[in-house]
């Protein structure tokens, strides 16, 4: 190779050439892939004969998209990423500056305060009818997932046990409340703790044989347990009414003092004007539920934060890091895992009981693997272990999917037949991929140490191990 004869070349020249080459390649590949699927379309006409439609225009659009997209990625986005990476590496490798200012330190309290005002603000801004959507579809829905994800966070984020069947405990909680309140007439406030305890109990029962497994094996077995619980719910028709589900699950009451049943003697509605009663009572119930789940979330967060700073919480995180080292330090890893599993399950059970009271109807359909996957996605997306990151991820993911229902302007863009709901999952998946590319360790990728000698420094998660136990 003769180095001397080469003319001096600017790096951007190189990049342009490479980008053009890769764009051409992408165009060829997409042409090859799409020519039969998109370019040619067969349909049956009225006489059941196959008709071949040619759609070269559409094909050209797709290929052009691929060419332009690839070109832009290689020419513009690539260097940008490289620069970002270099900048990151240049910054201190270890710890990042601790969040110091007032706003960041008290973010939890500020968020809690904002959420306390939220239903009232909505009521005042858009009126009782429209506020329902904001308080119930967005507020309550998101908070349920926040609570579930915080519960699962104890198992996956702290203890590092990959649990793909978390929804089983959600189901146990929901069915505990629904069935016990229907059969024995117990109230929401007695059954809420009971549902949590039952779910924790099931967590221990399932945990005992399962937690000897590690990593992928654990994931597969928990997945199977989630399905088993669902199948039991479907097939034990005498008790659970199978696929028909349980209808008429009683509503929660205000600590037994007022009821939200319209006809009850102590109905909360009696406090309102007679002609406004029914709709007002309904939105009052939703607002009440909002505050209930908000309080439950707050308790979950408080308990989790406290547990993290206790020896048991530290042992969970140590377990995620290195199980063998834990045992060499005298930590009984089986009971440590079991506590993580059962406390996580307990929060799932609480959320389940609340869910049943809110819906008034539950069926096994609500507890599929899809649900487990979403909860896990929230935990991973938020940054394993970070309550704040997880809450943000829940708002983005659950609120986002709700919001996609409302993108009516897309109809004017893509024609009246376009239904954004159908593309929700696609957009959702895309968003997840983007977040994971930009922030591979979740939205919050630093770990707050549980104790410090001189100053609290956040630990970059580059050092944490993901856990295989």
């Amino acid at each position, binding site marked *: 190779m003769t180095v001397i004869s080469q003319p001096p070349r600017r790096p951007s020249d190189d990049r342009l050439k490479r980008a053009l080459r890769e764009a051409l390649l992408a165009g060829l590949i997409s042409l090859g892939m799409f020519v039969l699927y998109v370019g040619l379309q067969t349909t049956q006409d009225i006489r059941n004969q196959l008709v071949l439609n040619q759609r070269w225009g559409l094909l050209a659009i797709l290929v052009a998209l691929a060419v332009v997209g690839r070109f832009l990625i290689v020419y513009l986005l690539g260097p940008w990423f490289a620069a970002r990476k270099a900048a990151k590496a240049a910054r201190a*490798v*270890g*710890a990042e500056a601790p969040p110091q200012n007032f706003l960041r330190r008290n973010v939890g309290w500020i968020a809690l305060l904002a959420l306390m005002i939220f239903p009232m603000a909505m009521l005042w801004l858009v009126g009782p009818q429209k506020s329902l959507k904001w308080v119930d579809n967005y507020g309550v829905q998101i908070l349920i997932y926040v609570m579930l994800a915080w519960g699962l966070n104890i198992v996956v984020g702290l203890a590092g046990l990959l649990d793909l069947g978390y929804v089983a405990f959600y189901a146990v909680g929901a069915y505990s409340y629904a069935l016990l309140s229907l059969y024995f007439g117990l109230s929401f406030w007695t059954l809420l703790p009971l549902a949590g305890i039952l779910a924790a109990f099931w967590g221990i029962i399932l945990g005992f044989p399962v937690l000897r497994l590690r990593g992928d094996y654990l994931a597969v077995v928990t997945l199977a347990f989630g399905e088993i619980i669902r199948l039991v719910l479907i097939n034990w028709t005498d008790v659970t009414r199978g696929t028909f589900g349980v209808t008429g699950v009683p509503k929660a009451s205000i600590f037994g003092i007022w009821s939200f049943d319209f006809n009850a003697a102590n109905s909360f509605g009696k406090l309102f004007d007679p002609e406004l009663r029914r709709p007002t009572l309904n939105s009052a119930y939703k607002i009440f539920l909002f505050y209930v789940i908000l309080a439950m979330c707050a308790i979950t967060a408080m*308990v989790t934060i*406290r*547990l993290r700073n*206790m*020896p*048991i919480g*530290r*042992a969970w*995180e*140590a377990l*995620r*890091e*290195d199980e*063998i*080292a*834990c*045992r*060499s*330090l*005298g*930590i*009984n*890893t089986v009971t440590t895992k079991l*506590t993580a599993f059962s406390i996580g399950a307990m929060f799932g059970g609480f959320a389940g009981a609340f869910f049943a009271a809110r819906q008034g109807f539950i069926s096994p359909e609500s507890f599929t693997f899809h649900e487990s996957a979403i909860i896990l996605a929230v935990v991973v997306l938020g940054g394993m272990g970070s309550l704040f990151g997880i809450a943000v991820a829940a708002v983005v993911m659950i609120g986002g999917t709700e919001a996609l229902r409302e993108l009516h302007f897309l109809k004017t863009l893509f024609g009246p037949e376009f239904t954004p709901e159908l593309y929700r999952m696609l957009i959702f998946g895309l968003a997840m991929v983007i977040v994971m590319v930009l922030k591979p360790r979740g939205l919050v990728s630093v*770990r707050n*140490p*549980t*104790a*410090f*000698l*001189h*100053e*609290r*420094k956040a*630990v*970059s*998660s580059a*050092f*944490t*191990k993901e856990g295989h136990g």
Partner: protein
Amino acid sequence: MTQATEEGRLSGDEVLRVEHMTMRFGGLIAINDLSFSARRGEITALIGPNGAGKTTVFNCVTGFYKPTMGRILMRRSGGAEFNLERMSDFEINRDARVSRTFQNIRLFTGLTVLENLLVAQHNALMKSSGFTVLGLLGWRPYKDAAKEAVEKARYWLEMINLVHRADDPAGDLPYGEQRRLEIARAMCTGPELLCLDEPAAGLNPRESLELNTLLRAIREKHDVSLLLIEHDMSVVMQISDHVVVLEYGAKISDGTPRHVQNDPKVIAAYLGVEDDEVEEVLEEIEEVAEEATHGHQGGQPTGDAR
């Protein structure tokens, strides 16, 4: 708890006794009928060529492997005796007070240095937090115990010269400091027998010296006996009181460093020669050693490092 059924089978100055221990992995006999004992307050070194089965002995003593045959007895300073081969790994640390480090360091890299030392005090803290329940409610004695735990961690950080790195992630430390931190972490569990698996492996001479100082300090200030696997003969000769030599899973020599150093079998094992050629080799070694001392005056590798 698996206390030995008959009392007093170990004499008072014995801390650990391994009797006829055999460990098989499938067809491979990693340890073959090994017996030795370690005395209280001493540093017992376990040496031998690579693959001799030293780490396997440690794994059996600390419960990570169950020996195929044999007995392992441990006697605590209070007189309680334990059959280690019947106990599980975490019980051996918690009840029999045997603590260990690993040949390839196993720190909690994502936790801070201080947190590593606090995790090691898990059992004591669990008890004082009323198994989490009382601690969760903000019980006063737990708060005091937590403060004490931090103080104990600070003491050990001072011992290993790492106070200034207390709040950094353990994975961020250089290799030598990670080794020392692992030893401090093992000591935070309050052991009576500390097993160190090649603590000097991969250290530079300065780090190696710091390690020796640390081990001496541990022995002087704490009521703990040491079981030590070491490759570096000079380290072994300097700090150990008693040496056990393994080859192919069997004991080939046992005694004071001096005795072991001059044992023909040991020399043969380390140089890889047959037994009957040992005499020749010994003579050669002596010649070489003499030449060396004449060549550079007093260039002893096992010089005084105090």
